[in-house]
């Protein structure tokens, strides 16, 4: 409940403040968001499976975001940033699909 509220509050804050995205963050923000979404869906799945732990969620969220950003950063340094971000997005999207599929099974067939 409070998590959904947090999401809403964050979105509203973003709309109200309308901050500029800093330049150094621009390549990483989209990837970080996708990674965060992946962590969120993973948490939802764990919750429905009854194995949710807030510590695990926090660690997975932070590490997901950091690793995604790191991969893109390394890719940029190696000159394959565009390809690596595509790869990261693909992998994370697959994970999101898998998590959503698990959630759906849990809710409608459990």
């Amino acid at each position: 409940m409070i998590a959904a509220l947090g999401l809403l509050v964050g979105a509203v804050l973003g709309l109200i403040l309308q901050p500029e995205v800093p330049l150094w963050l621009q390549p990483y923000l989209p990837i970080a968001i996708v990674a965060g979404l992946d962590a969120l869906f993973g948490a939802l799945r764990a919750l429905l499976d009854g194995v949710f732990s807030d510590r695990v969620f926090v660690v997975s969220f932070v590490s997901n975001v950091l690793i995604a950003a790191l991969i893109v950063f390394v890719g940029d340094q190696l000159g394959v940033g565009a390809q690596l971000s595509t790869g990261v997005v693909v992998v994370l999207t697959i994970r999101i699909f898998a998590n959503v599929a698990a959630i759906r099974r849990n809710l409608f067939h459990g």
Partner: protein
Amino acid sequence: MNNPTPSSSTSGWHRLRVVLLARPGRGQLVIAVLCALLGFGIVLQVRAVRTEEVLASARPQDLVQLLDSLDQRNERLDSELSDLRTLRDKLVSGQDSERAAAAERAARQTELGILAGTLPAVGPGVVVRMTGPVSADLLLGTVQELRDAGAEAIQINSVRVVASTAFVPKAGGGALVDGTSVSGPTGTVTISAIGQSTTLASSLQIPGGVVDTAAADQVKVSVRQQDTVKVNALRPLKAPDYARNGS
């Protein structure tokens, strides 16, 4: 959320309800902050993509590629520009030389027209009036004297004197100029000549010159210098039948 239901057999819906109604704990606060961050980021990114230029968020490689293609296009346009400039310069200079040639042609036409007698001429000169039995010899001498003094256009009465002009004695006195009778035993012949008037006048009046010769023939001669002498008798241009351009 941090107190999962102990029964694993409970359905997902039940767990969801439990979680949604659960009292927020400290662990949930961290989760809420993370979710807020996520929402914040999403809104930020969506806004950035919507409002900002595509270039601002583009990668260096893409930018370099874009720059490259722009450079190439720039180069192409530059070369096109210089081509067109050259063409324009060529056309302008062509126009100039064309104009110069036209002016040259017009000047030459005037020159030749005055020489050939197809154009009327006006300018300073002398008007010579001869009264009495003017002979062809006297006319010829007068014309030669005038030409020698630099006369540029001459007319006798209403006959233009040109290169092919002939002076023929008329039976019974007088003269024919190009087949036209200009003088008889009596009467007045008017010769108009354009040139430097003082030179023309003095060439006729030198001792033993035209005026003296005329006096011996009982012809009275008056020479008048004028600022504007009109030589407006014309002569049709005759194309040469036999002479060809030999150059």
